[in-house]
């Protein structure tokens, strides 16, 4: 029997959800399907998130789930910030480090292997923690939020870009292992992320809904899957590709109905502004 996950079974090692996700995003096939954009909106929305978070030259940034380091590189280059990336996939860490060195950004960037739910850093070492399209994947979101709070300085800022989902309303087809890979099943509604951040001691200072970026990403992946189906080599995978396409159709419908979306969120550690003024004064 072949479901949509069959396509990826052939491309990916089998593992638990979290390592599976990390492995999936290392897959070149997936990178191609998504046109090299591992999150909705691509570089434009990454830069927008940086603007909303008020990144300034010299800021110390932690990129949680940094993948192959593209976001970290972009931020380091555009905002002249120093970025530490933490990532579960060991290959990604090595690739990110190599790519940063090749881009001449080795002094501004550093990548380490680690779990977002147990960050391998001391308290209060960062000005900003950024988590782009990854929080939705973490099984222990509260733990991850608390960890980001812990490693931020008292008036530090957390910048989240993520898929939003109204789990109760989502069609059954979008549940399950494949849906988890596609950032859907474990995503929260917007209020869910805001509550999570509040409970971790943050105050939301900016939010921007960008559902259209997610819709474009889903449509692009669907179009690329249709091209895959044209390849003679994919002849044996027709059923899986068709099933994956059906999944995308469900996702498009859910985005249209507002059950799925994408949001940029910026939050500051609560009550920290006064503390900071005092300490600076």
């Amino acid at each position, binding site marked *: 029997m072949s479901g949509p996950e069959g396509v990826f079974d052939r491309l990916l090692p089998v593992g638990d959800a979290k390592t599976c996700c990390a492995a999936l995003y290392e897959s070149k096939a997936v990178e*191609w399907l998504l046109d090299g954009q591992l999150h909705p909106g691509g570089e434009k929305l990454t830069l927008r998130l940086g603007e909303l978070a008020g990144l300034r030259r010299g800021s110390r940034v932690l990129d949680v789930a940094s993948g192959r380091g593209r976001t970290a590189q972009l931020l380091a280059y555009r905002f002249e910030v120093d970025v530490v990336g933490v990532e579960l996939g060991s290959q990604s860490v090595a690739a990110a480090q190599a790519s940063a060195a090749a881009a001449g950004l080795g002094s501004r960037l550093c990548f380490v292997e680690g779990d977002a739910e147990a960050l391998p850093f001391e308290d209060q070492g960062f000005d900003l923690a950024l988590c782009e399209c990854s929080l939705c994947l973490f099984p222990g979101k509260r733990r991850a939020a608390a960890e980001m709070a812990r490693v931020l300085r008292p008036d530090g800022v957390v910048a989240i870009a993520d898929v939003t989902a109204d789990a109760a309303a989502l069609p059954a087809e979008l549940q399950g292992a494949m849906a988890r890979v596609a950032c859907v099943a474990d995503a929260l509604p917007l209020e869910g992320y805001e509550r999570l951040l509040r409970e971790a001691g943050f105050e939301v200072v900016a939010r921007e809904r960008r559902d259209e970026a997610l819709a474009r990403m889903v449509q*692009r992946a669907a179009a690329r899957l249709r091209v895959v189906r044209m*390849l*003679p080599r*994919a002849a044996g995978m027709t059923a899986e590709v068709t099933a994956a396409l059906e999944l995308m159709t469900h996702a498009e419908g859910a985005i249209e109905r507002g059950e799925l979306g994408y949001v940029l969120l910026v939050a500051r550690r609560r009550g920290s502004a006064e503390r900071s003024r005092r300490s600076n004064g």
Partner: protein
Amino acid sequence: MRVEHTDKAIGEEVLEATQSICPECRKTLQAELVAREGRVVLRKRCDVHGRFEALIYGDAERYREIQRYRKPGARPRELQTETLKGCPHDCGICPAHEQHTCLGIIEVNTACNLDCPVCFADSGTDPAHNGAGGFSLTLEQVESMLDHFVAAEGEPEAIQLSGGEPSIHQQILPMLAAAKSRGIKLVMLNTNGIRLARDPRFAPALAELGIHVYLQFDGFEDSTHIAIRGRRLQDEKLRALDRCAKAGVGVSLAAAIERGVNEHEIGEIVRFGVEHPTVTGVFFQPVSHAGRHPGFDPLERLTNSDVIDAIARQLPEWFREDDFVPVPCCSPSCRSATYALYGGGDLVPLPRLVDIDDYLDYVTNRAVPDLAIREALEGLFSASAAGGTDRAAARLECVACGVGLPDELQELAAKGFMIVVQDFQDPYTLDVRKLRRCCVSEIVPDGRLIPFCAYNSVGYREQVRAELAGVSPGPARGGSHERT
């Protein structure tokens, strides 16, 4: 009455001021582009001949949106004329022009084997088009015109031999060979296909020279052919295509679309072309009202947005309106294009696969986006085209993964299909600002390159024809011809 900038009472808004000409006396006039009832209209007034209005774009909102695709042009290497009377009366190309020529057109004759009710070149079978009132260029004239084109452009991208009906010129094959031998990348023959259908040796001869056929193909119904071309043509069109397929000649279908005549056939023309083994694309041209065109209303003409909407409406499983990208050359409202991949009965437009804005530079300043979009498509998969970025390199490495795209690229590219929607200007719609960026030029025997829309609107066609009329009936077959 002068209309203020925004007159809510009649729902009209002035978008831009420009210049145009009087369709009667050709005098330069001030003109305005206005949004009215959701459409864009060009209006102007001649002191002698009164007020004129013509539809420019069928969707005012989209017209505003696509203006972001406007880009500065690329200037030609050489200019042929001076600016004396002011645009559009110094063409040739003059220093006021802002664009080089992507596509050169040489009309080799005025004689034709059809008598279409609609003809911007006012050609036909009548002796008037063949003898004293018409012309037939010599091979030497065409060679000299090609040399002017090469001098102006350096490495010209594309040329089209047209007419009249160029295939009935006895020297057409040597003329095409002359264009090929000058290194012009894409050499096209613009033809109605009758000779291809009737002469079994013609398609193989074109194949041998590497010529691309630009075939008039307006639809399938007899009523369409009778309205636009004057008689039934379906059998000959199909036979011409089969001959091209058999000989290995690539064909672009060129469809003149007229409101109320063949709008409803637009989707079928696309589907037929996509499925035909030798057809690589379709060019849709809303019928312009230059030359011979009796009884029309410039406010009821079709525009690019109407054609794009018809494609999306008639082929909803394949196309959306936003699959068509306005091409900055000449101007976003002149030309929109898309490039699609076709296989296994499915078709995917390229703009769905990439962020097309990233690739817009590839389609800038080129009239024949085919070559450009192919490059962009290849750029998706090759390290060399995308500036050697990590992204391109990663794509190349796809060979290593389960999908393995680069290996398949050639096959995919062979199934690439292009659709261009091209609205030519006429004396009613002429907008001088757009004309300055026109990149399709008529090459005339004295070496001037006259922007196509000016050639058809301002009176250049009539001047050139009068100068050439009766000069030469064309050389006898195989015989020598005295240079003039």
